[in-house]
């Protein structure tokens, strides 16, 4: 379990994380999304005890990240944004090195190599690995001591689609094993796929925390209708008439009430003698949630 309370980190005048309060329950995946520079990595580094908070507190499995940092480090598996590896070691040696540091024994190494799909490449130098393979060996390293808590910072950053899917599926498998997982990402599809709960961070502040469906429901109040008419030359006039905006070949009309909006669309079509080809509602995605929250400020 991860709990933070008003966790704050300042670098001089800059407040990288501002009073972040979060809870991740045991066996749950919390995905933290936010634009670049929002404070995701700083939050993660504080939880991994690499950085000390300026104020506030956080506990992992009940242990304070400042006072009991050594204990916290033994409970957390940390995967940084970029793979941090020794190029001169083989994949197997790399895992042996970290298992020795954690004192966790080397029994898990074959199993982990299989888990990340690197069993055949175990004896090769990491310097010869592709980026995806380096990511996967890093993931195995983060799991070497079988930690109950995983903190993963951009786990699929820079990976090709196949490798990304692999890593995401591995994360889901680990959730099934009962691990508590915090993932930072700026890929919305990844957040959608992984999250039990989503936190949106912007300018260091947690702007929203809820289940993805709840967040989408909030955004759904600002749904749009996408209208396509036959006459391309009339699109702009049509948009002005219904009070919508042009989006490619379609006109987006904000729904205040569905009936009212449809009446306005039909009236405009009659007036301009335009032929409506299609009308469909646009369902909000997590990206819409992200945009709405990051543009709209705090929204918890």
């Amino acid at each position, binding site marked *: 379990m991860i709990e933070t309370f008003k966790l704050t980190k300042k670098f001089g005048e800059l407040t990288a994380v501002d009073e972040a309060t979060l809870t991740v329950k045991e066996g749950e995946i919390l995905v933290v999304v936010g634009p670049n520079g929002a404070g995701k990595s700083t939050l993660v580094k504080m939880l991994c005890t*690499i950085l000390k908070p300026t104020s506030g507190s956080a506990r992992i499995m009940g242990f304070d990240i400042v006072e009991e940092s050594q204990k916290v480090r033994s409970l*957390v598996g940390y995967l940084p944004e970029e793979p941090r590896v020794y190029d001169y070691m083989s994949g197997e040696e790399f895992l042996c090195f970290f298992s020795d*540091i954690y*004192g966790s024994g080397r029994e898990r190494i074959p199993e982990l190599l299989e888990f990340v799909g690197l069993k055949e490449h175990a004896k090769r130098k990491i310097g010869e690995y592709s980026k995806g393979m380096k990511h996967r060996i890093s993931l195995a390293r983060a799991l070497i001591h079988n930690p109950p808590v995983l903190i993963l910072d951009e786990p699929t950053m820079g990976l090709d689609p196949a490798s990304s899917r692999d890593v995401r599926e591995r994360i889901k498998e680990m959730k099934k094993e009962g691990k508590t997982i915090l993932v930072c990402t700026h890929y919305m599809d990844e957040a959608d796929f992984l999250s039990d709960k989503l936190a949106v961070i912007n300018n260091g502040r947690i702007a929203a925390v809820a289940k993805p469906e709840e967040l989408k429901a909030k955004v759904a109040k600002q749904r749009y209708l996408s209208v396509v008419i036959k006459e391309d030359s009339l699109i702009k006039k049509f948009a002005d008439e219904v009070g919508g905006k042009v989006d490619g070949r379609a006109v987006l009309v904000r729904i205040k009430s569905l009936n009212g909006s449809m009446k306005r669309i039909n009236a405009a079509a009659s007036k301009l003698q335009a032929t409506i080809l299609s009308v469909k509602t646009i369902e909000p995605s997590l990206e819409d949630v992200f945009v709405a929250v990051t543009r709209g400020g705090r929204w918890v």
Partner: protein
Amino acid sequence: MGLGVMTRWGLRGIFSDRRFLLSVIAGMLISLLTIPLLMEAVSHFKEGTLLSALPLSQKMVKIAVVGNHPLLSELEKNSVVEVVGTDEATGMKLLEEGKVHGVFIINSTNGSFIGRGIPLSNLAESAVKEAVDSYFRKNEKPLFNLKQDLGLEELLRSLLAPFLMLTPLFIWSLPIIQGVAYERENKVVEVLLATPSRRFEVLASKIISNFLFAALLGVLWMVLVPFFGFHFSNPIGVYIILISMALLVITMNALVSSLASNANEATLASSISSTIIITLFFSIAILKVFPATEIAAKLSPATYIAEQVAGKPSPFPFNLMIVIYIITATAFILALSAFSTEAFAFAIKPGLTQLYEGMLEILRSRKRAAFAMGFVAFSITMPLEVIAIGLIFFLIGPVVGLLLLSVTLVEEGLKGFALRILKPAELREGALLGALVGFAFGVSESLLLAPIIEFAVLIRVAPILLHTLCSCVVGIGYAKKHFLLSLLLAVSIHLTYNLYLLHFWW
């Protein structure tokens, strides 16, 4: 457990880099081959002498001469020497009373010089040796049983031998740069810092594994060197000095690597720092010819190695070991401070303030940090004082007052600098932090100097109190926003004490 594991893996990492190992072996072989070539070249140096190169013009050295020999005319020609003819008993009495700086007893085949323990006796001894050397150059037959290899030739030999012995340190200490700066640049250190290992263990393991590597190569070096012309009366003593210097250079490289932004910058900085360390220790050996710095010369590995190469059964220099380990410990504290800062984890260049923050991180108390900074200030003082003394000697001459002033300025200046970093906010805190800085400085100084000058430890109580008092004044001054004024006051108190001590001693 983390320390042992990381040390073992560190060693494994060093030995897995075959190209690096081959370069090290090649470098050592090249150094070995230069030994006989350079020593042969030195034996051709016969022109000029060290003493005549010194900027001395007055007859400041008095030598009582017992007996007669044609070479005495050479001694009388020396511009700094006044020769007093006398009998042996009177000469010894004069020496005892400090009225002459040495007694030279001479007959047709033998000569002996007595003068040890008296200020300027070293200069008197050098003058006698030069006279003998000069006499032999004019009279080809060596009729006299004093050693012939004096002057510039001796100087070159005594510097070249230790220099050649210590050359491999530059390459032996390279793995630490890889271990600290490269890991930081590639941010591998981030995942190490996220393991249960403490930062102390992470840094110490890198230093220890590099040290073990250097110690192993040191054995190989000591086995090979005799085949190329260097023989030592105490090879184990030379080996201990060699690997102690290696530890110092490795720790200094750990410090510069912790401060550098990337591996390239660290490599450049480490080559500069290694050169400075070795040059400083050598410059101390050169200062052996000055009586006032004779004590300092004993603190040079160059002096010990040169004596060993010359076949002199010199005692093992424990004081030198203390100096090396004091500086090493200081470098380790600073490296650990830099290593413990957030700036390090984020690959931002740490400044002095961040070093202090790192120190606070390790020591968890401003009082302990103040004590540590007094210790650090003392270590930095040593090389700076050598530079200051050297500059004054060579640019102005042996003006005692100026030498004392320079030493006082360096010591009080560095303690003051430590207090500027500590930034005491109020009078009481200023007094306390200042006292701690001064106390640590005084204790370190006593630890080093007491065995050298064979003073009873109790006598050192006065200097410890003096340092405590002076820094206390500066601490209060800083808190009261009169830093420069208080520093001036501290320098005055310290200088007065030094002048009194000099008067008392002489």
